[in-house]
């Protein structure tokens, strides 16, 4: 084992060619994961709430969408975006946005599931009490149910961030220079130390994802103490 291949290329692994070129490496991995996760959270809340609206075709549409997304590999969604986005916008779309769009559409379906579970975890008494005080149904959702549901779901959201961070590695397939892409580049150039390179990269992902997993576990313990939300 000879880890000089890592130390020699360390800044390349961390930030790519930045500041002389585009941002890459670990920094781009984190950027893609965070941006996609924020968009997916919004998408998940919209889908999750839509599946509670008293409008049946919309509910079917949401159910169909989440089933499709959960039934196909993320790689498929990435290829779909890769082909469809340029056709839809009638111009080339930057690879970063292809990946963010795919990750957002894909993760939204999983987020919607979490949001639904969150809404269901809020005791019905809350909803009934809010209705009884004269709030409109949308106010009940926006001011009473959702805030409690989202709070209950924070640990699951962090877990989803872990999944998205791992999923950003697939961005390599459309040529986005995140950590996995950098690793294959360095490997193709050196050819002599593949085990060291991929062990190092695995360790980097592990540090990021394991910290987030621990954060989620801590939040789970923290949020379940002496609060009045869950019965």
């Amino acid at each position, binding site marked *: 084992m000879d880890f000089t291949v890592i130390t020699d290329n360390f800044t390349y692994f961390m930030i790519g060619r930045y500041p002389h070129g585009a941002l890459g490496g670990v920094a781009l991995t984190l950027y893609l994961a965070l941006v996609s996760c924020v968009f997916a959270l919004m998408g998940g809340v919209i889908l999750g709430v839509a599946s509670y609206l008293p409008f049946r075709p919309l509910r079917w549409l949401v159910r169909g969408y989440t089933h499709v997304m959960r039934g196909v590999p993320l790689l498929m969604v990435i290829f*779909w975006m890769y082909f469809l986005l340029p*056709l839809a916008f009638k111009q080339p779309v930057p690879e970063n946005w292809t990946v963010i769009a795919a990750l957002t559409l894909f993760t939204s379906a999983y987020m919607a599931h979490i949001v639904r579970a969150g809404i269901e975890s809020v005791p019905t008494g809350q909803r009934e009490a809010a209705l009884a005080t004269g709030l409109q149904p949308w106010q009940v959702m926006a001011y009473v149910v959702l805030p409690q549901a989202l709070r209950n779901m924070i640990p699951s959201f962090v877990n989803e961030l872990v999944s998205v961070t*791992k999923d950003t590695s697939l961005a390599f397939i459309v040529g986005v220079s995140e950590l996995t892409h950098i*690793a294959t580049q360095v490997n193709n150039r050196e050819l002599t130390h593949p*085990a060291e390179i*991929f062990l190092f990269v695995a360790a980097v992902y592990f540090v990021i994802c394991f910290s987030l997993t621990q954060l989620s576990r801590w939040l789970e313990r923290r949020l379940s103490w002496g609060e009045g939300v869950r019965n």
Partner: protein
Amino acid sequence: MLNYQFDWHIVTSGIYAEWLWQGLLVTLQLAALSCVLGFVLGLVVAILRMSPVAPLRWLAQAYLEFIRNTPLLIQIFFWYFGAYEVLPQAVNDWLNQWRFEFVAAVIALTVYTSAFIAEDIRSGIRAVPREQMEAARSQGLGYLTAMRFVILPQAVRITVPPLIGQFLNATKNSSLAMTIGVAELTYQARQIESVTFKGLEAFTAATLIYLLVSLTITVVVSTYEQRYLRPGGVR
């Protein structure tokens, strides 16, 4: 919106339909192999994870955390590009007899799937009431014997639905094997796209095939749950 001429004949008949069919077979082979092997490995890890010996528990825990917190793609690359550096020569020679990219994909998927299966098995074991173990031990059975004859038979039944779910996950995860040149479904769709430039048709067909697999699995799981796990049903 789209200015594109569709030509569905390309994927419904002829050589390209044959490619997709071959791809599906490889996808199912990958998923099945890695699920069966992953179950064996996962069972060992789950039992170690609950063993009364602390260092064994730590070892299993470290394995689970490491596998679950690194991307599958990196693990595939490690086994495909890097493993020969760390494996003994004899093992390498033995592995090289086979199509190596397929073997590397199976190893990576097996290891990855085993970590998730181990957690499913552990939840299944924990769902068996604690008294069952206490009663078995007080009858004079050893820890492993009690596991084998009392706890596991009950836990397995509870674990079946999540295990079938893992088969679905393995089917989806196996798409990553295309990156090292395993000719599974996604790879074949990509091939058709690069030969015919009919990417939308090829990927629509592949997407529908994946959906068909996932729909079948969903139906199997809900049938199983209704038949065997419904309260008041067969216990």
